[in-house]
């Protein structure tokens, strides 16, 4: 993919990630706020190291990101509360978030390979992207638990109530992220199949060395 295309995708992604923060606050879902801030940090990594606003990751990695972020922003602002935590359309929000987290995690792995004297094969890059996405989903459970506790859900052992539905509220994000991250990993494996590792790891465009 041409560098100019990557730069456009990068610029659009940064704007959409900022809009995601606003949309997440609007639907009261702080997991999206954290995901967007986490993603923004890694979206700005190429600029930080090349000192060039036109530098970007390989376009093939970035390509799905604007669609995912745009889908969340549009759906969150149009459907509002139906997209908030535990609402009927929350699973769609989680699916989109898992996709975004996989791409952000892949960027994290590129950062690790480029700047932390660590090398991984492409196979391990994909595996670790999935691990980061699943670990983040696991850590979000703390926020969801706190949210449930503050909202008065029965979060402690209670012999008078069946807790399955409340357990599922806590587990929904992890479960969906786990299954969809496997699917996304397979997609990325085939999507990036013919891209050499060197290209995957380089920052394209601007004054960078590609």
């Amino acid at each position, binding site marked *: 993919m041409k560098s100019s295309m990557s730069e456009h995708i990068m610029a659009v992604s940064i704007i959409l990630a900022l809009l995601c923060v606003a949309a997440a606050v609007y639907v009261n879902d702080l997991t999206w706020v954290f995901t967007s801030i986490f993603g923004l940090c890694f979206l700005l990594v190429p600029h930080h190291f090349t000192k060039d606003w036109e530098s970007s990751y390989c376009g093939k990695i970035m390509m799905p990101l604007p669609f995912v972020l745009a889908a969340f922003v549009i759906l969150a602002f149009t459907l509002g509360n139906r997209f908030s935590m535990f609402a009927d359309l929350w699973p769609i929000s989680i699916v989109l978030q898992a996709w975004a987290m996989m791409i952000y995690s892949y960027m994290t792995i590129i950062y690790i390979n480029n700047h932390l*004297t*660590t090398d991984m094969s492409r196979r391990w890059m994909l595996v670790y992207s999935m691990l980061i996405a699943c670990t983040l989903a*696991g850590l979000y459970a703390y926020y969801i*638990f706190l949210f449930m506790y503050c909202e008065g859900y029965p979060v402690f*052992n209670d012999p008078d109530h069946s*807790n399955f539905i409340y*357990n599922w*509220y806590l587990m929904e994000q992890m479960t969906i992220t*786990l299954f969809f991250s496997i699917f996304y990993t397979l997609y990325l494996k085939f999507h990036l199949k*013919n891209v050499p590792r060197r290209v995957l790891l380089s920052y394209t465009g601007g004054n960078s060395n590609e």
Partner: protein
Amino acid sequence: MNDIKVQNIVCIIASLILLGMTIISAVTSSGRLTYEIVTGLFCALFCLVPILLRRLKLITLPTAFIIMAEIAVFLHAYGVLLMRYDFVPMWDTVTHTISSAVVAMIVFYGVQYIEMHDSEMHATPKMIHVYIFLITMTFSVIWEVFEIFSDAAFGIHMQYSPFDTIRDFTCDAAGAAIVILFSHFSLKKHDIAETVNAMHIHPMFERYVSRHSGKKIDDHSEDNKN
């Protein structure tokens, strides 16, 4: 006393104590094959697995790992046989943390093995700590998902409440943290090759890892590109 002798003594003593406790439980329950007795027998046999693996020349497990695994198995069986899970507060929390530490140790040694045999893999000690945390927490997620699916499919109660799940996660994170601390000192004291060579892992595993090493895949891709 060398490491092998220490390993044998730990495994055999743990196995004999559990076997003794299981026999006492069987006698007091009039010989019925209860869940407690099956668990006790299984754990007593499981304590001998490290010796079996060494005898089969598959792997010589590190002493630190064996001690941790034996403690985990022993405490679980002891808790089941003597009802410690029901009557001792936090028993579940302690066993869960130690079990997570065992999983994290498997990750620690596994990552070192891959680091040594995968030509495309190179990790600093700090990154090995990150890998331990990520893999252990992902195992934790997989386990909790397995629990909720079991609850839904079979109508059982593996997950009691959201608090129970969060406590399990915290135990898993604590187990990973313990092993990260252990790995910090271990990697300072021993280099990766020394640790991996001491395990005498069967060559078939080495062949498997080398065959799936990233180098060949990337060389192939570069060839296609050119």
